């Protein structure tokens, strides 16, 4: 919905008085009390003459609301969120306003129930995350899809929007290349050439702490799960961080650096101490090259995933350097070489002298049979390829589906390829096939164009699994769909609950929540080193982890989605607990804690959200206000006009102005004031949280003033009051979340005609205390999710042209 908030009251106050007078006359023409209300409080500005905000409500017929649905949906939105009538203009009491909204909604929802419009669904292409998950589920193979495929464009806030998931030649080339690499790796093709995989540590990771996943009693380092394509020899190299003069950290004392493979130590190098330090000082390049050599180890690995790790063994708990290191971040000074050695990267090269391929998860998944004689080969190939195609195409396969697959198999087999090589060839075709890459949903042939119909069970199975799991359906879903049972309400509900309980529903956190809440931006935030010298990658990761665990707990425990705002618990590790000032939390692993500080409750108290809505060197009440308006209240502000002057920085010598004072100067500009009046008070309520979400009482020497009047009239004085205001309108918050969820589930931007479906999920959800599963079921049961309109078929000439 492209409804934007612009709370400009009509500024021509002289005319206001006149219009109020004439409103009385208009009221006489309409008999209903709603019309009178509308005329008295709305048409003042939204008249044919003034058209404030481009909207006139003067001539709209309250007797035929559905005809003006697009406009009325805008009206409802403003009324429900409390943005209209704006502050400073006469307002009826709350009950009257919500009565008006309910009246309009009732009429629209009734019309929808009689004749729902499921909207237009365009054919989807799998996005990068879905592709990677599909490969995982199809072949039991974890791939780095970011290395294989380009990123997807985003629209309506998500990267799974069908309309923008286009194909291009370079994308197609990447798909072909990916299918080649993946099919070889999954089958374990003996001809796989040696290559190098490099895993880097972010340079702002502090390596004086234990890293989760590495052995206890170690500091810093990196741990990766690497898929080894074949049985053979591999070279593992660890490179320590060095500064621009090739000098390494921590060499003044002896350290033990170890390399582990599947949890067992395979190499250990003691480095550092006076002789080494002098050697490094004399010729850093040569010293570094020598150390690189020492930290190189050759291992024999079987094919399949293995854990490789490198870290520094903790020599003592006495942090002697802490005396001169006032900051938690150890990499504040890019030249500083005191402290602990830091791993910069880990590379795995190979395979060399490969001896073939042993049992791997992928081979177990693919080779469901093994031919022992020549005559068993073809039936076995049929069985293997039939199973792969069924999962990849997400439907039962017929003989004519198997035909091309078997011809790929046979050709390679006849061409002196092994049985496995034949399967690999056919698998490559499956992975490059449009039936795998696209989500086709056939229109039924026996209904006229323009008619509405329920999608078939197979299409429903795919929609469900791409929505809840971001991947292809599993066997159970496909079986139920093949038996045409999936759409039965009891079956469907059971399946949704099963899917939410499955770990694969983490995809809702990774793909839905991370995009809805802007968590994906965390990886690129770079708070200013001078302002926030403690901020390091450890904290960045912890922030993300907290919100992910938090969202996941609401999902898995089937809590009310209102807990996203209000929950009295969260998840922290030592680094984040120190950031929040929570005592008694030690160690790198996360645990659930009770939140005693009211201000820290829910999403608005979490450092992740507070950081992604800040600038590198300071908070941004505007960004925070905009974030809440957009993501929690559903009324995004208008984009700023061009040529907006920057905020004035505090100059030398003059009395420093607080951020609030400087922004008030900015707001003196009438062009800016309209939106900023709405955004700023929301953002200022969070001013006690600094640019990385730490609590503070003053800023730049000025005391924080978190008070203000919100656009809907309530007074707030900080995060608690703001949260209470948001929670006091559960229908608004839940409604916006449902809009986002429906957008994500359908893979398309919502239109005004989708709003009755959104309202229905909110109403049904309210009866279930807004439990997460009931909200998901609301989406799944909506006509938009389960129905489609048959499109006019393409003309014969277009079809002919398509096929040359």
């Amino acid at each position, binding site marked *: 919905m492209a409804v934007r908030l612009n709370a400009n009251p009509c500024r021509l106050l002289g005319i206001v008085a006149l219009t109020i007078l004439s409103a009385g006359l208009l009221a006489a023409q309409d008999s209903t009390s709603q019309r009178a209300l509308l005329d008295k409080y709305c048409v003042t500005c939204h008249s044919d003459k003034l058209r404030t905000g481009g909207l006139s409500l003067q001539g709209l017929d309250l007797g035929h609301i559905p005809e003006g649905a697009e406009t009325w949906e805008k009206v409802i939105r403003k009324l429900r969120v409390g943005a209209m009538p704006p502050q400073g203009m006469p307002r009826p009491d709350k009950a009257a306003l919500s009565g008006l909204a309910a009246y309009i909604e009732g009429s629209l929802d009734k019309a929808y129930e009689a004749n729902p419009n499921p909207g237009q669904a365009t054919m989807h292409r799998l996005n990068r995350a879905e592709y990677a998950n599909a490969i995982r589920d199809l072949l039991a193979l974890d791939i780095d899809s970011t290395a294989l495929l380009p990123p997807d464009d985003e629209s309506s806030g998500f990267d799974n929007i069908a309309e923008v998931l286009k194909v291009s030649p370079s994308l197609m080339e990447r798909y072909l*290349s990916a299918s080649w690499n993946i099919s070889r790796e999954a089958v374990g093709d003996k001809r796989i050439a040696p290559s190098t995989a490099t895993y880097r540590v972010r340079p702002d990771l502090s390596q004086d702490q234990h890293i989760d996943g590495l052995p206890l009693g170690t500091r810093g380092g990196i741990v990766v799960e690497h898929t080894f394509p074949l049985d053979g020899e591999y070279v593992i190299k660890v490179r320590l961080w060095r500064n621009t003069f090739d000098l390494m950290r921590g060499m003044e004392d002896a350290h033990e650096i170890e390399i582990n493979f599947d949890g067992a130590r395979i190499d250990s190098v003691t480095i550092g101490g006076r002789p080494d330090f002098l050697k490094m000082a004399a010729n850093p390049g040569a010293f570094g090259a020598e150390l690189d050599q020492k930290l190189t180890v050759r291992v024999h690995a079987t094919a399949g995933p293995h854990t490789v790790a490198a870290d520094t063994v903790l020599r003592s708990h006495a942090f002697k350097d802490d005396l001169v290191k006032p900051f938690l971040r150890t990499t504040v000074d890019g030249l500083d070489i005191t402290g602990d050695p830091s791993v910069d990267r880990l590379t795995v090269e190979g395979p060399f002298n490969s001896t073939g391929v042993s049992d791997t998860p992928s081979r177990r998944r693919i080779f469901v049979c093994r031919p022992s004689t020549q005559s068993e080969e073809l039936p076995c190939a049929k069985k293997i390829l039939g199973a792969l195609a069924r999962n990849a195409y997400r439907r039962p396969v017929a003989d004519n589906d198997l035909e091309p697959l078997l011809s790929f198999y046979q050709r390679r087999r006849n061409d002196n390829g092994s049985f496995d090589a034949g399967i690999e060839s056919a698998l490559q075709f499956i992975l490059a096939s449009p039936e795998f890459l696209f989500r086709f949903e056939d229109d039924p042939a026996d209904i006229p164009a323009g008619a509405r119909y329920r999608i078939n069970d197979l299409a429903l199975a795919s929609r469900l699994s791409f929505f809840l799991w971001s991947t292809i359906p599993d066997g159970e879903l496909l079986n139920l769909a093949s038996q045409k049972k999936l759409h039965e309400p009891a079956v469907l509900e059971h399946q949704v609950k099963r899917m939410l309980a499955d770990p694969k529903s983490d995809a809702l956190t990774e793909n839905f929540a991370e995009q809805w809440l802007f968590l994906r931006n965390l990886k690129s935030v770079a708070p200013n080193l001078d302002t926030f010298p403690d901020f390091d990658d450890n904290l960045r990761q912890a922030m993300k982890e907290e919100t992910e665990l938090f969202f996941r707990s609401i999902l898995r425990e089937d809590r009310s989605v209102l807990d996203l705002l209000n929950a009295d618990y969260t998840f922290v590790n030592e680094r984040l607990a120190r950031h929040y000032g929570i005592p008694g939390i030690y160690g790198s692993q996360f645990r659930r804690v009770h939140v005693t500080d009211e201000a820290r409750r829910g999403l608005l108290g979490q450092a992740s959200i507070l950081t992604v809505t800040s600038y590198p060197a300071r908070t941004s009440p505007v960004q925070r206000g905009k974030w809440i308006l957009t993501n929690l209240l559903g009324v995004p502000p208008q984009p700023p006009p061009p040529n907006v002057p920057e905020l004035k920085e505090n100059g030398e010598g003059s009395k420093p102005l607080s951020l609030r004072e400087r922004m008030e100067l900015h707001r003196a500009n009438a062009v800016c004031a309209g939106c900023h009046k709405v955004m700023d008070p929301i953002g200022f309520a969070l001013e006690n949280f600094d640019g990385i979400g730490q609590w503070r009482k003053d800023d730049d020497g000025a005391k924080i003033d978190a008070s203000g009047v919100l656009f809907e009239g309530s007074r707030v004085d900080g995060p608690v009051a703001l949260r209470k205001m948001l929670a006091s309108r559960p229908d608004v918050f839940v409604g916006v979340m449902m809009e986002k969820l429906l957008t994500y589930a359908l893979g398309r931007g919502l239109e005004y005609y989708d709003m009755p479906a959104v309202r229905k999920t909110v109403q049904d959800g309210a009866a279930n205390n807004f439990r997460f599963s009931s909200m998901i079921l609301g989406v799944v049961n909506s006509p938009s999710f389960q129905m489609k309109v048959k499109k006019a078929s393409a003309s014969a000439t277009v079809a002919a042209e398509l096929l040359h």
Partner: protein
Amino acid sequence: MRLITKKHIPRRAFLRGAGVTLALPLLDSMVPAQTRLAQTAAKPQFRMGLCFMPHGAVMSNWTPPGDAANLELSRTLKPLEPFKKSVVVVSNLAHKNAAPAGPGDNGGDHTRSPAVFLNGVHPKRTDGADIRAGVTIDQIAAQQIGQETRLPSLELAIEDYSGLVGSCDVGFSCAYMNTISWRTPTVPMPMEINPRVVFDRLFGDGSTAQERLERIEQERSILDAVTGQVRRLQGGLGANDRNRVAEYLDTVREIERRIILAEKQNSISGINVPATPAGIPDDHQAHTKLMFDLMAVAFQADITRVSTFMMAREVSYRTFPMLNISEAFHPASHHQNNPARLEQLTTINTYHVGMWAYMLERLQSIKDGDGTLLDHTLMLYGSGMSNSNIHNHSPLPILLAGGAAGTMQGGRHLKYPEETPMANLLLTILHKAGVKQESIGDSTGLLTEV
């Protein structure tokens, strides 16, 4: 929407059983209608390889003694001895746009030197996203002579500074230092340091020529089968989805076109494709030589005709243990006129010139039409800085080599008046490449002697 090609022989059947080095005659029907391969094969094709070094040079040891037509090599240029007949030393050129434009534009010489090197345009001072430089000659040439090859241009580099964000000059985006090639004034071309990635771009994945051919064959079969599958799917689709499928089929056809070009490369006889590199060699010399090998083979197989190579990055802290120099490149370049340190820097300069000489050797060893690849290539080597101790930009150390497809004579030292714009040479190179534009950057005319 129809495929604009001549009638194709089914290549699948055609290629079956083909060995490692294919020597298939190029049948006319294998040449797509839109390319002019027949013509390009007949006439020697012009190639250009433009190499960049940071930190200038010790000019007293660089500049050859005479300015005669008979080139006498200086100490630093000694590694070029075997190719003297192909080398042109161009002296007294200047990049005045690499210097600060005035007060408020102080410093930044390390940033401007690479940004100006191939366009002569003063880059905008910004550390934001609004970067702006000039289109470089490699990209201008690629528009003209790069359109018939699979890769219009190839950008190579040696040093990876991606982990050092924030280490660039104050007030400048790192983007300026990370490349010497700009496709448009606002779009820098990323430079690739990993030979494996370069290799895959040139030849596709696969460790042997046999395997790459198999892959091409397989992809062709897949595309054929995909088209068949789509045909079956058409029936049930609505208009929108049909459009989407049409879009998809278009991409399939475009890939077919690329595969035809890939087939052509793989079917040229006598090319020694280097073994698939595993990744970035640890040894600097091996890394540099491998990148030159890849540039040479890309020229040879006509995969590209235009390449740039950043042999080191400005403010490089690489050390040279193999030269017994413990000082890093950038500190060494601030020699303070100390004789011992000048000696060190000269040794480093000579080492780099030696790397470039390796490329000339490669090119000379490869037959190309009626001569060698060196005869048909124009190689440039130089820096955007002169004296690194004081960061000035005149006179620049600049070398040319190669026959440039019959447009250049080697064995000469051309000494121009002081402060002659380097952009004049850039313009001259463009003209040799067949791009007759009137000016570039601060150019004032052509260097006809070159």
